[in-house]
């Protein structure tokens, strides 16, 4: 269990506070109950003392002091009720004392002698020798003859203590139950309250620079979580705007660069075609023209990437056979490999269907093969394979060339990144080929990754979602088509206007 999670902390606090409240209420009720029980007992005994005082006065008036004991025994039977009654004359003579109760809770003989009550009435608690407590009340009664009597009543406090013990037992056994209820109830509540947070987190996880148009679900609850999702959505919107701004900037910039490049190119071309131009000058102007063309290529590449990233660049979205496309492209690239005496092999079975823009995905194959051929020494090997794996179409281009240093690998798809700046510029690269590959793959809901062992070769792996099965004419052939290398017998393209 993650003790730092909001869920754990909320439940812990909730359960702790609830249990503490329960304990506090328990303690307060205990004290209140104790006071109530003691004062009720005292009240009771006081009343009894007053009744006995009344009785004593009547007896003394009519029959003298002698009959009082019998009268008390017959009316109140204190020993049977575990009660204590004592009447003491002011000269210290005890007129009556109740007998010891049967259960021997106290012995009247142990009780201290009567103390004249200060205000006519008093109550005190006395600790007996057997460890029990007793509540004693005393009341001064003045007879008409002038004699003063001290009437004492008493009761053991056992009953009060038993009631209190029971209450305490209830509290102590109730506390863990309350704690368990607090934990269970608390986690249910917290789970309910936090489930929108899980949803928001899961949605936020899915959003990347590719789908900034998406938004988080906003629970229509009017609570803080709704505010949070709205705030996050506003943040995504600002990010989206920033991304769009940067894409628009690239698109606008490449757009604005085209006119000056057109002029530059046109003017230099008109010089190069000038027949009277000395050969050396023509050479220099040709070199300048080459640079203009490269500049045009870079601008073109940047423009393509910005359009791809904005999801605008697909001219078509059709279902086609990636295996066939790859094999045909390898055929077209064969001479390029042969020129460096590189063995280009192709294992691309028919029937690996994907969806997308054929020209763009062909560009992926072209760029990866071109890259592999460029960075493989003469006499090396380049292998192109296409396969269907689970729900993915996988296209791999592997070579045994110079490879990519591990520190450069994470940046290999970055715009303008070059592993070896001097050399790849000689090769005419603008550093955009792999960025374009990455953008095309992302625009097709796929991805591309590179792995490499420096000195032994590199491997580029493209994964695209397979097209959903469609009305298929016959069964697709899954067998590996033998690489058909050399010149294509495809219908050739002749679009010279």
């Amino acid at each position, binding site marked *: 269990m993650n003790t730092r999670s909001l869920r754990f902390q909320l439940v812990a606090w909730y359960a702790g506070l609830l249990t503490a409240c329960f304990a506090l209420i328990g303690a307060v009720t205990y004290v209140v109950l104790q006071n109530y029980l003691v004062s009720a007992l005292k009240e009771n005994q006081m009343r009894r003392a007053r009744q006995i005082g009344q009785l004593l006065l009547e007896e003394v008036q009519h029959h003298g002091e002698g009959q009082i004991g019998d009268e008390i025994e017959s009316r109140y039977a204190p020993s049977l009720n575990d009660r204590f009654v004592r009447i003491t004359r002011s000269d210290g003579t005890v007129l009556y004392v109740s007998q010891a109760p049967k259960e021997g809770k106290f012995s009247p003989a142990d009780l201290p002698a009567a103390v004249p009550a200060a205000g006519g009435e008093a109550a005190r608690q006395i600790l007996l020798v057997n460890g029990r407590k007793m509540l004693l009340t005393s009341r001064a009664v003045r007879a008409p003859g002038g004699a003063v009597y001290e009437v004492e009543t008493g009761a053991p406090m056992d009953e009060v203590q038993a009631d209190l013990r029971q209450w305490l037992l209830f509290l102590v056994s109730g506390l863990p139950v309350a704690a368990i209820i607090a934990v269970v109830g608390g986690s249910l509540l917290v789970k309910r309250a936090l489930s929108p947070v899980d949803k928001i987190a899961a949605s936020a996880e899915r959003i990347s620079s590719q789908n900034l148009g998406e938004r988080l679900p906003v629970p229509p609850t009017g609570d803080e979580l709704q505010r949070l999702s709205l705030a996050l959505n506003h943040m995504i919107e600002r990010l989206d705007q920033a991304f769009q701004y940067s894409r628009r900037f690239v698109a606008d910039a490449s*757009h604005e660069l*085209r*006119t000056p*490049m*057109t*002029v*530059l*190119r*046109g*003017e230099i*071309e*008109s010089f*190069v*075609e000038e*027949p009277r131009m000395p*050969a050396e000058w*023509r050479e220099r*102007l*040709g*070199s*300048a*023209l080459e640079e203009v*063309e490269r500049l*045009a*290529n870079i601008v*073109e*590449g940047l*423009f393509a990437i910005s*359009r791809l990233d904005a999801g605008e*660049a*697909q*001219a078509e979205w059709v279902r086609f056979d990636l295996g066939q496309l790859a094999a045909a*492209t390898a055929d*077209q*690239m064969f*001479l*390029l490999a042969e*020129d460096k005496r590189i063995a280009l092999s192709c294992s691309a079975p028919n029937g690996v269907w994907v969806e997308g823009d054929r*020209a*763009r995905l*062909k*560009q992926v*194959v*072209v760029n990866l093969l*071109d890259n592999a051929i460029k960075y493989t020494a003469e006499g090396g090997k380049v292998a192109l394979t296409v396969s269907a794996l689970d729900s993915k179409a996988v296209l791999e281009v592997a070579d045994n060339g110079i490879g990519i240093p591990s520190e450069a690998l994470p940046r290999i798809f970055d715009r303008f990144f070059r592993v070896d700046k001097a050399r790849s510029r000689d*090769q*005419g690269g*603008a550093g*955009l*080929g792999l960025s374009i590959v990455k953008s095309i793959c992302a625009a097709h809901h796929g991805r591309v990754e590179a792995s490499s062992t420096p000195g032994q070769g590199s491997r580029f792996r493209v994964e695209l979602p397979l097209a959903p099965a469609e009305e298929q004419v016959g069964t697709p052939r899954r067998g590996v088509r033998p690489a058909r290398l050399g*010149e*294509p*017998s*495809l219908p*050739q*393209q*002749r*679009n*010279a*206007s």
Partner: protein
Amino acid sequence: MRLLLIEDEKKVADFVARGLRAERFAVDVAGDGPGALEMVAACEYDLVILDLMLPGISGSEVLNRIRRGRKEVPVLILTARDGMAEKVAHFEAGADDYLTKPFAFAELVVRVKALLRRGPVNRSSVLRVGDLELDRLTQQVKRAGKRIELTAKEYGLLEYLVANAGRVFSRTMIIEHVWDQSFEGLTNIVDVYVRHLRAKVDDPFPTKLIHTVRGVGYSVSDQPET
């Protein structure tokens, strides 16, 4: 042949007009939409070259008005945008061809001539340059009467160069015509194919027909290199 060039960028207009005049076209230049529409109304042009980014009335609007005036004149569009959707929209609006800036001037000339149905749109099936003979129907190539076996791609490349003999083509133009847009930027493939083509077409013969123009590209011509 009278052409109208509608282009507000003066420098672009200058070199395009100069180049086209060198190709012996009569070229009028209009710097904005209203002026261009007046000129279209006043004069029968054989071809209109239209830049889409114009002040005042946009190029698309100019195209619409030309077409509404029931002018059958072919229109070649120049633009700095190359979105597919835009391309389709312009063809639907009545453009006949389309060139994206920065274009190669040679490419512009090829397209202009194609639209005017002269020059490279040589409908005869046999093309000749010096003693090189290329039959478009049978796709057979002969030099000095001797048959030369070419692969499909080599044939496509040679046909493109021979059909526009004397003209210099950049590698990018060759890629666009002989390969396809997926090969954009892969200019070294042209060099490799030209080398193979030379080995078959030029090396066995004393006169070289395929010329390299440094910085620009290649051309086929029976004129010796200067």
